[in-house]
Each structure stands twice: as C-alpha cells, then as structure tokens.
C-alpha cells in the first residue's frame, strides 16, 4: 500500500471525516445492519434454501415498489424512535414507549369517537389528545425516577402492562367504540381521520410530514437551546451537570413527559390514519398484547444513534425492511417473523457496534501512524466512556 502518492492535505481531510462522530455512528449502524442481514439470510437458507436468494433480494429491495406504504408504516416507529432516542440523550432508557403509544392511541380514539367537532379541527384535537395521553404515561416513570430514584426501566415495563390492560378494558366497556362481534373498534368518523396524501393503494397520510417536522424541531431543541444542552450534559455526566447548577429532577421529569408525548403522538398517528378502503379507518383489536411499535422504536433509536435526523432515516429503513418482509411472505412463503429476528440481531450488534467501529478505526490508524490528528479520535473514545459511566448512578 503506497498511500503517500495522495496529496497530504486531501488525506488528512479524509481521515478527519472518517473519525468524526457522525461518521463513526453511521459506520457502526451500517455494520450492525450488515450483520443483521447476514443472519436473516442464513435463517432463510435454513428455512427453504431454493428460494433464499430471491427472497433475500425481495426483502432488501421489495419495499422500493411501495414507497407509500414504507412512509405510512414508518410514521409510528419514527415517533417511538424519537421518544426512545430523546430519553437516551439524557441517559434514560424509555422502554415504556409501548405503553405510552397505547395510551396515546386510546386518548386519540376517545376524542375521535366521543367528541363532536367541526371537520377541520377534529383530527387536530385528536392528535393533541393522543399526545396528552402519552405524556401522562411518560410522566409517571419520570416522576418516580426523579423523586424516589425508582429505576425507569422497571417502572415503565410495569406501566406497559398496566396501560395495555387498562386501555383494553376501557375500549371493551365502551359501546360507542367497540364492535363486539368484530372484536375490534368501529371505524372513526371521517372528521377525525388525518387527511390522506392521496397515493393510490396506500394509507400514507399527512402524519409522516408532521413526524418529520417534529424530528427536525427536536434536532433544533437538542442542539440549539439551553434545555437541550442541559439534557445532553446530564446524559454525559449526571454529577458534573448537577454541580454546574442544572436541575436533575426537573430535567428528568420534563424529558420523560416529552418522550411520552412523542410516543403518544405515534399512537395517534397510527390509529387516526384513513385506510385505503374508502370511508374506513384503522381499527384496534383489544387482545391483551403489548404494542410492538414501542419496542421497534428502540431499534430505530439505536440505529439512528439517538440523533433525530438519523432516526428519520433509520425509521424509513426499518419500515422498508418490514414491507420487504411482508412481500417475502406473500411470494415465497417465508414467515414475516424473519424481519423481527433481523431487527433483534441489529439491536444486539448495535449495542457494541460503536466499540467495534472504534476498534476498526484504531486498525486504520495504525497503518498511517504519525500523520493523524489526535483530537477528534480522543473525543470519540471519551464519548463511549461517558456513555458507560452514566449507568453508574
């Protein structure tokens, strides 16, 4: 390898780019995705070897033919992903996105069925109601964590179950919402449905645009406001930020309320969507199962390395995989659970992919030792260290 033929300036620029934080997390995410896909391919090989290759390519590229659906299914997981990622920034693990999502969905449904409002306003009120529902369910673990030091992971898991049981009970006992012989909720009045974007054969609606706008707002809040700065500072080092005069209690509660509100919006966006059949809407079946979209949000947040902009892309990617997966099961007889396995493997590897990419970076550095700028690379290892250390408390 004779790298020295390149101009030194260009080379140092390239290595700066390689070692910047964003690039490192992108590389980490791509590495995790690649490993997840390889496992998925092997599962397909075992399940039915003859159509594995065609199945795999369909899984990878099948979603491209149905972009409307990709956007539609990306909306809720984009919101839960933002919720989990936002809490991550402060060092909180919001595993309760599922319960907040369910509660938001219920509040949106309630506003949709029980309140009579003019068409232009009704769906907006329903969305806001969903947000309030999620905020409520995020507030509880936040309050308990901030005041009584109860670990948010356990409380929010318990709240997932409690919320699911409560919502199912409320819905079954409400004659206006529930159709007993369908064991599902009725169709929402059209005034409560979010306007469709009019893509043929797809449910995609205005909410994807709202969701992307919210992600951009969150990016600004995190990077350009005092609150965002305090939040990240608390996430890096709880004790130092407390010493600097930031209120840990207030920020914890506020973060969980916002995270809950984001998940609640996800639930509202999912249930208020008009379906492709004219006049009908999405329905909910109360069968005591915890909402999967909440847990998929964890995958989305990790893949996007908790960056709101990254989360937009990772939500689209996971949704794209999901569409590919449903095509694979329709054409080649593979079961759609393959996608769940791929997603779980991606999360597993993304938990330590950051470290793997640091290791790869070190390998890279050893080759051209002496010409490398030390700065950004040191800050990267510090970042990883900080992440581990804030688990201490």
């Amino acid at each position, binding site marked *: 390898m004779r790298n020295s033929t390149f101009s030194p300036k260009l080379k140092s620029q390239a290595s700066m780019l390689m070692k910047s934080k964003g690039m490192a997390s992108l590389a980490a995410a791509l590495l995790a995705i690649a490993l997840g896909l390889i496992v998925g391919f092997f599962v397909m090989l075992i399940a039915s070897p003859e159509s594995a290759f065609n199945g795999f390519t369909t899984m990878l590229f099948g979603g491209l033919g149905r972009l409307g659906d990709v956007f539609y299914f990306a909306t809720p997981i984009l919101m839960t992903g933002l919720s989990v990622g936002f809490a991550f920034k402060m060092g909180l693990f919001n595993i309760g996105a599922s319960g907040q999502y369910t509660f938001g969905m219920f509040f949106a449904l309630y506003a949709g069925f029980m309140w009579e409002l003019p068409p232009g306003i009704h769906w907006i009120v329903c969305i806001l109601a969903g947000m309030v529902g999620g905020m409520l369910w995020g507030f509880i673990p936040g309050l308990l964590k901030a005041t009584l030091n109860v670990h948010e992971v356990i409380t929010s898991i318990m709240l997932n*179950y409690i919320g699911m049981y*409560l919502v199912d009970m409320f819905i079954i006992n409400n004659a206006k919402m529930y159709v007993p012989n369908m064991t599902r909720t009725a169709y929402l009045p059209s005034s409560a449905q979010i306007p469709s974007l009019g893509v043929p054969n797809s449910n995609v609606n205005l909410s994807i645009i709202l969701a992307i706008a919210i992600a951009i707002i969150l990016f600004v809040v995190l990077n350009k406001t005092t609150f965002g700065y305090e939040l990240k500072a608390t996430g890096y080092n709880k004790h130092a930020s407390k010493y600097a005069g930031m209120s840990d209690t207030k920020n914890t509660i506020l973060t969980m309320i916002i995270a809950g509100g984001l998940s609640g919006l996800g639930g509202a966006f999912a249930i208020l969507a008009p379906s492709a059949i004219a006049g009908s809407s999405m329905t909910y079946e109360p069968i005591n199962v915890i909402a999967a979209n909440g847990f998929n949000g964890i995958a989305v947040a990790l893949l996007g390395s908790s960056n709101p902009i990254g989360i937009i892309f990772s939500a689209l990617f996971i949704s794209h995989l999901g569409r590919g997966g449903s095509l694979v099961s329709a054409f080649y007889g593979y079961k759609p659970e393959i996608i769940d396995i791929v997603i779980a493997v991606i999360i597993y590897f993304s938990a330590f992919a950051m470290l793997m990419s640091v290791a790869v970076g070190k390998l890279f550095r050893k080759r051209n030792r002496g010409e490398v700028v030390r700065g950004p690379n040191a800050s990267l290892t510090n970042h990883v260290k900080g992440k581990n250390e804030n688990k201490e408390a």
Partner: protein
Amino acid sequence: MDTIIYLIQNMLPVATPLLLVALGGMFSERSGVVNIALEGIMLFGAFFGCLTVYFIDGTTLNPQIILVIGMLIAALAGILYSMLLSFAAVNMKADQTISGTALNMFIPAVILLFCKMKFNSDGITNHVKFFVKEVPGLSKIPILGPLFFEKTYITVYIGIVLLVISIIIFYKTRFGLRLRACGEHPHAADSVGINVYLMRHSGVAISGFLGGIGGFFYSVGIMDGNVNGHTGVAGFGFLALAVMIFGQWKPLQIFFAALFFAFLRTLAYSVALIPFLSSLNIDQTFYKMLPYVATMLVLIFTSKKSRAPKAEGIPYDKSKR
C-alpha cells in the same frame, strides 16, 4: 380453610419460577452484570424444554422423568443463551440494558417462526400430565399434607432444593465470596488476583441456568407444559427483576418476595372462587393488573434505601483505575 388451601396449592407452582429467575438475576447482578434479558432467557429455556418434552413424549418414560430431562435441556439452553449477554457485556463492554433488550426481542420471533413452520401454530402444545395429585405417604400429614403435598408439581420441590444450593454457593463458598466482590469493587478484586471477567461470565451463566429452568417451570406449572410465542412468559422475567430488587439481592428475602408476588397473582386469577371478592363485582382486569401495580408500589417504597451492587452495569476495564 378450603380457600386458603386452594390458594397455597396454586401459589407454589407460580412462586417457583419467580424464585428461580430472581435468584438467577441475583447471581448475575451481584457479579456486576445487569441482566434485563431474564425474560428472553426464560422463554428460551421454556422453548427448548417444551421441545424436548414434545419429542420424548409417547415413550414409556414416567412424566416426572420427562420433566427432569426437559429441565436439564432448558438449563443448558439458558446457559447458552445467557452467554450471548455476557459476551456483549463482559468482552465487548456493550451497554448491558440494550443487549439484554435485544435478546428479549429475539426469542419470541424465533419461536413464532419455528412453530409456524413446523407445527403451523404459535407455539408448542404438549399433553404430558406433569400434575401430581398427591405425594404418597406425605399427603396424609394433617394440615401440611394438603398444603404442600397435594395437587402440585415436583417443580416446587426442585425449586426449594435449588434455593438451598444457591444460598450455600452464595454465602459458604470461596466462589460466592469472589463473585460478590466483583459486583462491589472489581478493581479491588482484580488486585488480589481474582479473574473478574471469569467471575462475571460465571455469574451470567448461573443466571442462564436458573433462568432457563425457571422458564421451563413456568411452562409446566402455569401453562400446562405448553409454550407460546405471542404471550411468552407474560412479563415474569421482569417481575422476577422486581422480586430481586424487593428481596434486596439476598436469597432468603427473594424467597419471601417471590411468595408475596405469587400470592397476589393467584388471588387475581381465582377471584371467582372467593365469595367475598366476587361479591365486590370489580372488573377482572383490575385483578390482572394487581401484580404489576404491586411491583410499582413495592419499588416506590423500597427504592430509596435499596442497596444495589455498586459496580452493577459498569463494564470492567482493567486499564481504568
């Protein structure tokens, strides 16, 4: 009196998996690794245990022998699955909560995929009668006989034996002392020549062993020998974590905490049989939520003074002193 006997008979098979899994969590956390993957480990053990039972059912073996064979396979499966966690947590120094969550998400998908392909259903259904009507001889003892030796599963007795063994290993052996040292102050432990990585791997492996058995016992004692990818173990792995915290990471206290939770759950599912509770006419859903609400309340009252292992959740790095 009949109601009390009924409740206790039904409580013990529920308490056993909670007890074992919480003990597993204790071994893992006292060695310094947060084990949020207990739910997944349980389900993995339950799956392989039930699969084994499915294959050896129909042979002339006694149902109780089948149970023990299933248990051993479940334990082995649990150990293997937990190694994925300890590899991530100890070798790769990954975030332990996240890798645990990934393991929890992985196994239900695997079960659904496998069972849909092989049985065209959501789970494995077995028809082996594990139920013990009465233990010959012992069931004749007044009061104690009907309480502990009638209408039960041998899982309860195995659970008690494992509890005793756990207490001995934890408090009376050199290994137990070293394990606990690694959860409190790994650097100090390392400085006197204890292999922290090995201790943490062992702690997680023991949690896999107990978690796998606990998962299989959940299938036996609560699901009648079946396993299902949709319902899984209904949050028992997480409840076990709460039991462990409530029991302050100590074996005997964990035992009583497990009994307490199991009692609440049994009560919730037998409301119709208790005249007083059924006359109150409260929606069944509230009783189903009871164990989860109780967990929250217990944590609220105990978390302020709870004493978690000091080095829990922090990857051990030799170079960081």
